């Protein structure tokens, strides 16, 4: 059976993650072709996913400096040993 729009919002993650069954995936694809609202919903989820992928935070400068110092100590120990 063709999923309703409400059902489409619950099926989205499995579909995007490639975990929908083949028949379900085919029905979702068809629904997306016919329904601009659900297309927009799925596109926005994709926008969120892509934005999150580029949202890695940088470590604090203090942590980086501490690790840089420890790395140099480690390197010196290795070269001595």
């Amino acid at each position, binding site marked *: 059976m063709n999923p309703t729009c*409400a059902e489409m919002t619950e099926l*989205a993650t499995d579909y995007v993650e490639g975990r929908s069954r083949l028949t379900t995936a085919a029905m979702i694809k068809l629904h997306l072709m016919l329904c601009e609202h659900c297309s927009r919903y799925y596109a926005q989820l994709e926008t969120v996913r892509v934005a999150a992928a580029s949202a890695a935070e940088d470590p604090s400068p203090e942590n*980086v400096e501490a690790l840089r110092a420890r790395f140099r100590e480690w390197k010196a120990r290795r070269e001595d040993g």
Partner: protein
Amino acid sequence: MSLSAADRALIDRIKAGDEAAFLGLVSLHQAAMVRVAMRYCRSRSVAEEVVQETWMALLDSIDRFDGRASLKTWIYRILVNRSISRGKRERRTVPLSGLAPEGDDPVVDPSRFAADGSWAEPPLSWGTRPDRPADDAEIRAQVMAAMAKLPERQALVMALRDVQGMETPEICELLDITENNARVLLHRARAKVRNLLEDYYRGGRS
């Protein structure tokens, strides 16, 4: 999962004393590692300490790394082991699977659909306002702000899957949760972030 050529090359560079290679690896994983460690430690500063220790442990044992797991899996294994022993000392362990289950209410407010399940109040477009089209930097900032509002377990799974790009089985092993748990947490997290962005673009945009 075995060692990729890129992981192998990175390890060789670190072994040869390449500081930039090491710090590059740090900046790739540090934020997510602090998130993971915070599950077990009482404060952010303790979690950051455990992460620093993890990096040192990685350097000290890099010659013994056998490449049977991916570099990422190996790093997180050290991290989780250290976090757990530190958390025990601090008497704080909250295993993910021991927490209350996620609710199963719909991710989109049911009042937005008509009785037949079609959209009554469809998703709003983002960035059609001619005076201020949405740009990538704005969306990224809003996604990060929205993720900070998620419940802890949802934020953690979304950070590992979407920000760090981990595969679901890796996440399940790391957090000791089932595939179904991970699936539900990710589903709720992404939907909630989308909802929050919609709220933002609806009018609260400032």
